[in-house]
């Protein structure tokens, strides 16, 4: 059994990726490296995810009641090797806890320890959550941060001030802390493969894509902490970065257009490291023992 860990904060696109991947493996209607060899004993969670995805509905955030450990029995089309992938589809909050409270659910901690590879998700469609006030001053000017006269009412300012809440720490901090515990005592350090998935790649501005910005370049500028952490610890993390649009567009805005796609697998887009246009299994295959 090969264990892969799908990790990411809430709303980072983990479940949508799993739903789309499941469909690609079953449908086998576009060029893809892996195919589904057989169904596992428990398919309920995957069935629900795939149905929602096929209906072009927004996949609801994973909740405690809808968490599941997904098992995919796949075959590599090139080597014909059979593999069972065990992938947890957990709510994003579980991945926040190491950074927020210094604790991790024991089964997730065990999965992290055993994982042969990690798919780490970050959503391109979210605001900068670590913006500095100084940076805002650069953009708008200090006067614009006060009221119309440029004055700041101290009482109102004090009331508006939000105290530190660990749950609101930036996503990158939570991701880095989660990766750090994989090599922190009591676990022994070892080198792992990590595929960083920039989800909602379709929302990355047309300008950036026209300029040929790769997912790896996007990560370096938009997630500098994570990018530096991975690069500085290259002895522990062998990494690749992919840009993925597992939904194919933004819902509910693009629902009608997505429904019209004749082969649903073609909704999926992935870029990076020579992956075929719709082949979501490319990062998985790279992390598997057969990847050589």
């Amino acid at each position: 059994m090969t264990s892969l860990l799908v990790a990411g904060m809430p709303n980072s696109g983990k479940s949508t990726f799993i739903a789309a991947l499941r469909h690609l493996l079953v449908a086998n209607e576009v060029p893809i490296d892996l195919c589904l060899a057989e169904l596992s004993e428990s398919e309920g969670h995957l069935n629900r995810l795939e149905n929602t995805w096929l209906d072009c509905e927004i996949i609801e955030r994973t909740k405690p009641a809808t968490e599941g450990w997904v098992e995919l029995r796949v075959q590599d089309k090139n080597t014909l090797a059979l593999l069972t992938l065990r992938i947890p589809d957990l709510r994003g909050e579980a991945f926040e806890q190491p950074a927020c409270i210094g604790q991790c659910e024991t089964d997730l901690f065990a999965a992290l320890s055993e994982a042969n590879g990690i798919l780490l998700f970050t959503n391109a469609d979210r605001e900068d959550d670590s913006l500095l006030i100084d940076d805002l001053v650069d953009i708008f000017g200090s006067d614009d941060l006060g009221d119309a006269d440029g004055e700041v009412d101290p009482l109102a300012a004090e009331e508006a001030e939000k105290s530190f809440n660990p749950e609101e720490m930036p996503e990158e901090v939570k991701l880095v802390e989660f990766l750090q515990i994989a090599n922190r005592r009591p676990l022994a350090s070892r080198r792992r493969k990590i595929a960083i998935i920039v989800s909602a790649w379709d929302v990355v501005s047309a300008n950036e894509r026209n300029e040929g910005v790769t997912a790896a370049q996007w990560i370096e500028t938009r997630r500098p902490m994570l990018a530096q952490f991975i690069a500085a610890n290259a002895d522990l993390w062998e990494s690749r970065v992919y840009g993925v649009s597992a939904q194919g567009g933004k819902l509910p805005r693009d629902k009608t257009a997505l429904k019209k796609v004749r082969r649903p697998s073609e909704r999926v887009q992935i870029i990076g490291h020579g992956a075929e246009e719709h082949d979501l299994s490319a990062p998985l295959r790279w992390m598997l023992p057969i990847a050589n």
Partner: protein
Amino acid sequence: MSEEMDQVTLGCKVPGCGGPKSGVCINGLSFGECPDVVTISDEAEVDLEKPTVIDESTGNEPSAPSGRSMTRTADGPSLNGASCDALLRQRGGTVVGIVAGPEAGKTTMIATIYELLHRGRLDGYRFGGSETLRGYEERCHLARVASNRNCPDTARTPTHAKLSFTHLRVGTATGITDVVFSDRSGEHFDNVLDQPAQLAEFAELVRADVILILVELDRLAEHAHVITSYTRRLVMAMRQCDLLQDKILRLVGTKADLLEGQDVLDETTSSLSSLAEDLTRRAGGNSIFKALVTASRRRSRGGHVVHGLKELLDDILQPRAQATFRLPKLVPKKMTEMDSLMFPYWATRT
């Protein structure tokens, strides 16, 4: 029962989550939806406030009432003396002891180095990790837009706060190195000047590879004599406690951004350099103080930019000569036959 009343009688089973009492669900769910929310009696409410008992042998906490077992993954937001010591024994690293009175800008300086580093704004360095990410985030919070403030600030280190350390793993041209910064309330330094011998008990200064003495430049400009005297007394106390030997010493001028105009900045920089020379002279030439001017904040658009922190990091991470250790050559008074045989070996070893 009203909804308000319901909130009061509800608690959360997840350690670290304030639940309905705090108004924030760690699971990000509504309280009606979250399975970890429970109705609690008054007695149970008291229990929820107590820290969870951790099985030290396994590091595991007992199963949560919801059935979720939790594993401890970090010791706390910052490092205490023991955890810092354990980290240094495991990985080695540079210890930076920071000496400064209240509101001298210690925490702001530490936090800004972290902010610049993880944003890739320190040329030649890159972020390689930290064992105290939450500690840094707490320190940086008031400088972030997320705090809803109009101007950046730093929470003061309270007087009652114990000595703590923050940690950074820094990627350099030659590899990764670990740095820990001490963070101690400024009042501790004010108080210790009344009983200077107690400075020997400041563990971070005993262990430090680098000692930074912080001087507020705006106060140096206005109250030069007071600041100079204060700094001299601190350095005298450190010398008397033998805390200066073989250490990199920097006199760091902070808050350069508060100085109005280039003339004032030049004049104050000159005063700082003179003070550094004075301290070097008073230390008998064995300990060399170098002055460094820094600004950790920008006050307005087009105003002073953050500066001096890269140079500070350069100094902190400069290659240091390894301490030499030589075994004394001891020869037994009455040599046995075995001693005679061993003597040439001892001679080469010592």
